[in-house]
């Protein structure tokens, strides 16, 4: 509530009000006293006015106007000088306190929001960092895995090759042994059955021919 009682203007207008009251009291007093003189039979206010409203008995007018002017004047003076400024003061103080508290609350809210924003920013930073770390780690693991896989495959291929080579060698050896044995057996058979002494080279050639034939 704005101050309704600016000091200077108040003084001026209480003057106006006071002047109005005084003027009026004098005016009305004069008129009514004249009226009272014309009604001498009703001149005693306390007496029972036979018929008519007691309010219209002019004998009561001067006292009522006088006391009204006095009491209302005192009331106006007391209110405007003492009572109302006091109320205005309290209301203003309260208004001020409320707006100050509101401003404080708004400021605290801003601060809290700033802190929240900060926290969220650092949280996002941490999250991004964690993601980078995870990515890096999984890339490392992947690379490691691939390297080990490649080494393992190379090792396996190498062993396979060695094993195949030794198998092939053993097979060749076995085949050669079969051939020699066959030639020997064939020469032995030929010698025993036909009495023919087949020489070594011939027997070898014949066995080779048969093997070729069978293979073919």
């Amino acid at each position: 509530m704005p101050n309704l009682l600016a000091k200077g203007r108040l003084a001026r207008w209480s003057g106006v009000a006071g002047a109005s009251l005084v003027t009026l009291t004098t005016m009305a007093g004069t008129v009514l006293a004249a009226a009272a003189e014309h009604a001498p039979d009703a001149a005693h206010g306390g007496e029972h006015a036979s018929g008519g409203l007691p309010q219209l008995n002019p004998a009561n007018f001067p006292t009522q106007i006088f006391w009204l002017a006095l009491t209302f004047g005192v009331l106006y003076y007391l209110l405007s000088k003492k009572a109302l400024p006091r109320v205005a003061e309290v209301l203003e103080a309260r208004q001020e306190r409320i707006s100050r508290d509101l401003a404080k609350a708004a400021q605290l809210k801003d601060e809290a929001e700033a802190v929240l924003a900060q926290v969220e920013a650092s949280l996002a930073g941490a999250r991004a960092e964690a993601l980078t770390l995870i990515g890096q780690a999984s890339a490392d693991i992947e690379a490691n895995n691939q390297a080990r896989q490649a080494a393992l495959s190379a090792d396996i291929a190498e062993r396979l090759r060695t094993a195949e080579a030794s198998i092939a060698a053993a097979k060749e050896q076995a085949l050669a042994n079969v051939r020699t044995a066959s030639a020997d057996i064939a020469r032995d058979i030929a010698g025993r059955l036909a009495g023919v002494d087949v020489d070594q080279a011939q027997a070898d050639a014949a066995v080779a021919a048969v093997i070729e034939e069978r293979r073919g």
Partner: protein
Amino acid sequence: MDPLHQFQISSWFQIILGGYDVSFTKSAFFMVVAVAAIYSLLVVGMANRSMVPGRLQSAAEMFYEFVANLVRDNAGHDAKPYFPFVFAIFMFVLFGNMIGMIPYTFTFTSHIIVTFTLAAVVFVFVTVLALIKHGLHFFTFFMPHGAPVALAPILIPIEVISYVMRPVSLSIRLFANMMAGHTMLKVFAGFTVMMISGLGALGFVTGLVPLAINVALTGFEFLVAFLQAYVFSILTCLYIRDALELH
């Protein structure tokens, strides 16, 4: 049994001042009571100046803000300096009416001379105010804006009469309302008493009807007591606005 007897004014001690009888009467006493009650409500109520008001302080602040809003809404923002005047008028009339609702008291607002003097104070106040604010320009108030000049001989007397009649209507409205209400209460109360004394035992039963009406009327009278104080001050605000703005 005269329902108008309550409006009689009895002198408590005689004072003669400058040839006039200004005796201290029942009416004067209740005016003093009203002023004392208003002032103590505000001063005692605001004694603590609490940030969070108690009951009495709430009441004092409520009256203050009620009248402050009344002045702001009806007399405009320029009317702030006259707030104490309207506040004094409102409280004086309201307390005068309300004190009158207490049995065995006297309602000084039921006297035409009191309401007329108050209305005349308002009238003189706004007229002096308008003259100070606008000087001789004030008299253009009696010629409505944009009305043809030819109508001036008719319009100006009408406007002047309606302006001069303001204190009359203002005072008669308040006086008549208060007097009529109090007279009615007395008349209905009188019915009950008459029935009891006239009809004997039966009167105690039938007498309940006017008594019930009186209960309702009492409630209604409280409304009227507030409403008339409100109307009186709202019209004061409107007159102040006219004085400030000259429409």
